[in-house]
């Protein structure tokens, strides 16, 4: 059987993400998967989703890469960068080639270029009249995405927005704020769990996340539950041992 075409892969991705949205799901887990799919299907180097805190600050919820450099790039974007612009204006920051000698995002550009990225793009996560965050795409080459790619990217951005509205009435702004806060708080729990697993299994933080996700998959548990159990010490430590090389997603 021939491998799937890109169109088939895109359709399959949307269906799978939509399926997750109607079931009991973990926002951080879903958005990590969404970020991974963006990278694979859009032919880019890294992707990440940022949500707004109640105070209007942008924070990373999930990304395609756990590398410290990439995480740092998202941390910087709470102060400056394409995500912040997209979030504040509610408009896409279309393909931008990064340069060092620039007044636009001078700190962010330098760090991004040092990390090997040459161009960026950010799409606002729009919900009716408000923007709740942004989807950030990084590329290691300066080539802009095609128009079709941008449509697909917008589709992913919309899915990321929808993931914020779990159940019930979608029109309550209070519910949206609660969901955003809840997603960001569950990210914090996951970061703490990564530290716990890193120490217990004596692996680096990135590998700790891989094991966390793998355990959740293998035991059909929500990522956030596994993270909480890891912190509480109620999970079998043997869980952190590498038992199979199966890919996480």
């Amino acid at each position, binding site marked *: 059987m021939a491998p799937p075409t890109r169109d088939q892969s895109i359709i399959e991705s949307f269906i799978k993400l939509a399926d997750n949205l109607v079931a009991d799901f973990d926002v951080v887990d879903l958005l990590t998967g969404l970020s991974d799919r963006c990278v694979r299907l859009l032919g880019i180097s890294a992707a990440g989703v940022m949500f707004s805190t*109640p*105070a209007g600050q942008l924070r*990373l919820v999930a990304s395609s890469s756990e590398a410290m450099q990439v995480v740092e790039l998202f*941390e910087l974007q709470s102060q400056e960068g394409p995500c912040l612009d997209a979030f504040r204006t509610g408009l896409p920051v279309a393909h931008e080639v990064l340069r060092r000698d620039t007044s636009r995002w001078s700190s962010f550009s330098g760090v991004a270029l040092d990390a090997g990225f040459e161009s960026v793009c950010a799409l606002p996560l729009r919900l009716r009249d408000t923007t709740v965050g942004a989807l950030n795409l990084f590329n290691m080459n300066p080539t802009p995405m095609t128009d079709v790619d941008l449509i697909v990217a917008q589709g992913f951005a919309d899915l990321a927005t929808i993931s914020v509205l779990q159940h019930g009435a979608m029109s309550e702004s209070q519910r949206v704020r609660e969901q955003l806060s809840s997603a960001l708080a569950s990210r914090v729990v996951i*970061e703490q769990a990564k*530290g716990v697993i*890193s*120490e217990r299994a004596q692996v680096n933080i990135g590998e700790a996340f891989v094991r966390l996700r793998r355990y959740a998959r293998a035991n059909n548990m929500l990522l956030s539950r596994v993270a909480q159990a890891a912190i509480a010490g109620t999970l079998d430590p043997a869980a952190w041992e590498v038992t199979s090389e199966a890919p996480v997603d």
Partner: protein
Amino acid sequence: MREPDLANPSLVRWFAFSPHALELGVSAIFGFPVRVGAARLGALNLYRDHPGPLTDAQHADGLAIADMIALWVISAQAAAPDGVMALELEAGSHFHFAVENAAGMISVQLGVSVTEAHVRLRAYAFSHNRTLAEVAEDVVTRKLRLS
């Protein structure tokens, strides 16, 4: 707590704080505990640019506002997961994942709760005059191990 005349205090204290406060134009300071029953959550500090006591009405308002703040803090934190500070309560603009990773590691290394691990991290950073983020990075990269 009250100090209605920071420049001529009834009780000489706050050797590190008072000179700076006076420089900034603070002449009086009043503190109201923020608490729920016996649980003390923090303090509401009021600053004034001219000396003099609070009126009875102002004092009563301060007590009432401190109570309201306590109730709001409790309800905001009640909605957050264990060991995580409710986002609404965070004042800092710089969030670092490494701080959370480090807290997780320290909780295992020292056999303490994640909350306690955060306290130890902060205490180390403060006593060594380094930023929380820097210390956290060293813990995560295993250059530093708290004891």
